[in-house]
């Protein structure tokens, strides 16, 4: 069993309120493993930055305790926590050169000039910016500034680095390139990283584990595959990847699965009971578009319903098909562009099938009766 010593960071019942009226972070319990790359993912305003600021020491927790290396740090000022941080706008000091920026954390720790220089050089090489030490941050491109910010957060060998949407300001190609670069640095340096983003593909690409935030609560904490394959509630299913939603009422519970009558007269669907109440309760069925089979061979799928083709979008490797199923006209099916795939026409009625395991019965939508 893991002891508290294996965790670099522990949040214990942490709450945060700015105005004394509403909680921005509600009862956060989260352990970060040593050497882990943990991502906080969630929509804007869900309290991710607030969590990071409490960890870095810039915002006090209203309630609860945060441990760093098993030491409570609620009363430790930021400069004594020894946590590296990469800010969204990089916060590189504009009046210092790149090398001076990198030397800053070493100087304030009283490191000798020679050691400082050696470390700065090594850090610059790590982010492939060797010749740029003499430049001002303003003379660098966005991607280069980003790398300097990462190097500065790592140059004083912290155990833990926090990054708050560090790639938000970069264009798509650069962002993907930097994702791999940061991931690579994490693996070589062995530092623990707590990373904040609202971009789910970024979270899935980079992380060991992802904590999905909504409304100040961790909705699910799991490795990327699990998050995608086995979301535990409707929010996670919706937020991670693409997802078809069908609403309905539980009619029968059969061990692991439940039979749901979907709204709009689509009939009975047998689904995996993940997060539902008993017979009669409302539920959301979640189904990945790539798991729906068009015109399945009879008897191969537990669930077969009919759908009407509304729109076809050719995307090369697959054809994205929008259909109306049981009154829901936003039902998406990805038809793979494989040999002998079904050719559909707009307006056509076809049969769609899926297995019980691929269809997850989750919590009811908020406000739905």
């Amino acid at each position, binding site marked *: 069993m893991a002891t508290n010593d294996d965790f670099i960071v522990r949040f214990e019942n942490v709450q945060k309120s700015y105005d004394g009226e509403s909680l921005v972070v509600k009862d956060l319990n989260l352990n970060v493993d040593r050497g882990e790359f943990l991502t906080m993912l969630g929509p804007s305003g869900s309290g991710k930055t607030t969590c990071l600021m409490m960890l870095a020491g*810039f915002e006090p927790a209203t309630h609860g305790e945060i441990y760093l290396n098993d030491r409570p740090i609620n009363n430790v000022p930021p*400069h004594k926590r020894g*946590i590296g941080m990469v800010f969204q706008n990089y916060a590189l000091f504009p*009046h210092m050169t790149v090398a001076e920026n990198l030397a800053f954390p070493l100087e304030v720790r009283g490191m000798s000039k020679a050691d400082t220089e050696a470390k700065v050089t090594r850090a610059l090489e790590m982010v492939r910016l060797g010749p740029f030490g003499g430049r001002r941050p303003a003379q660098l491109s966005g991607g280069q500034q980003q790398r300097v910010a990462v190097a500065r*957060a790592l140059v004083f060998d912290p155990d833990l680095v926090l990054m708050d949407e560090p790639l938000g300001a970069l264009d798509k190609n650069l962002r993907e390139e930097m994702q791999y670069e940061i991931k690579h640095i994490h693996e070589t340096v062995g530092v623990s990283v707590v990373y904040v983003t609202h971009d789910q593909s970024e979270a899935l690409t980079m992380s060991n584990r992802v904590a999905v935030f909504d409304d100040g609560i961790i909705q699910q904490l799991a490795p990327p595959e699990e998050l995608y394959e086995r979301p535990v509630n409707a929010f996670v299913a919706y937020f991670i990847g693409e997802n078809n939603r069908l609403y309905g009422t539980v009619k029968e519970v059969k061990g692991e699965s439940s039979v749901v009558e979907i709204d709009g007269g689509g009939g009975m669907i047998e689904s995996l009971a993940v997060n539902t109440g008993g017979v009669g309760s409302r539920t959301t069925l979640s189904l990945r578009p790539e798991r729906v089979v068009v015109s399945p061979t009879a008897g191969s799928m537990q669930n077969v319903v009919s759908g009407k083709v509304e729109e076809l979008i050719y995307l090369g490797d697959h054809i994205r098909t929008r259909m109306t199923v049981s009154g829901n006209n936003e039902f998406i099916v990805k038809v793979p562009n494989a040999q002998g795939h079904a050719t559909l026409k707009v307006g056509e009625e076809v049969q769609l099938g899926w297995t019980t395991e691929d269809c997850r019965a989750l919590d009811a939508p908020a406000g739905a009766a």
Partner: protein
Amino acid sequence: MSDAVAGKDGDFSIADGQNLKQRLRKATSRARWQAVFMVAPLGVFVLLTFILPIAQMLFRSVDDPVVSDALPQTVVALESWTDRSELPEEAVYAALAADLKFLRAGGADGEGKSLIGRLATRLNFDTSGVRSTITKTARKVKKIEAPFKEAFIKADKKWGQPDIWASIDRLGGAVNSTQFLAALDLRQDVNGDIVSQPEVRQIYVTLWLRTLWISLLVTVICVALAYPVSYLLATLPLRISNLLIICVLLPFWTSLLVRTTSWIVVLGQNGVLLEALHLIGLVGEGADRPQLIYNMTGTIVAMTHILLPFMVLPLYSVMKGISPSYMRAARSLGANPTLAFVRVYLPQTVPGLGAGCILVFILAIGYYITPALVGGQDGQLISNFIAYHMQRSLNWGLAAALGTMLLAGVMALYWLYDKIVGINNMKLG
């Protein structure tokens, strides 16, 4: 060939042989002319109301035609006067008699008599006490006959001393530097050497030093008061900071005169401040009370108050643009709050600090109305004396010389600032 080709020196020529640079110039000339027309009205205005008067002032500080206009023959005759321990020769006295007679008779334009008055005044500025020598001699000049030397000395014994002759010789050049020397408490003696003014006439060096000292002090106090306020304004939520900014700007919307005189109410002998201190027993009655106004203290307090917004605004605008994440970054990198401030925040406010200091210092060094109202004797600055020479003593030449030196000082300061901080680094708001 239809494409543009590059010549070997990088010049481009186009198919029809025209140079690309010329083509570009032609294409942009319309925009250039538009720009000229847009600037022209302001340009003319500035020229007429600013550049010409300043040029005139610069010229007036060295332009001094009175003596050469009034006594042309004497000035020429004096060129032969080399041994300054002796009196000039008879010929010089004769020339003076001729000049004075000509002026008494109306001079070249019939204004000869008033020219005598101006001559007397001008010479009196240079060598005090010679006004009457000139006017008296001029009145009697009709009766003065050869030998002129004796006759002049009999008319006024000052003609028997070399001083007045040296004065006429010095001011005989239509362009001379006497006013600049006077502005530094210096003068030329009989032999033409530069020496200090006599002790009783030395005022300007003290004044220059006092002006510099007060300006510096006011600037430093303004920085000390404005820095924390601007920081607060820049970090508070916008709703509150806007309200406070109005409080800072409020003095701008009140008349300068009202603001200055209100200090008289506050700081006077029986003013609000001293009465309040008296009530809590900190100061006594009457003569025991410290003098807070009509002296240097009054000038410093009132000027600081009036110039404070000029420090707050540039500082505020610079601080507003400094993201709080810089301080956070510095803290997360291990710097304690003081170190983070000194190493990271302060350097980023230098553009605002520099602009504020330059602005306040330059305004302070030329300040007039506040010291005039609350400065008393020892709170007077150089501009008060410029005004005095413009309005009272009518020694415009000296006023111009003082003004020119003030202008040169400000320019020097500006140059120094550019060298040290860089003018591009200045942010005025």
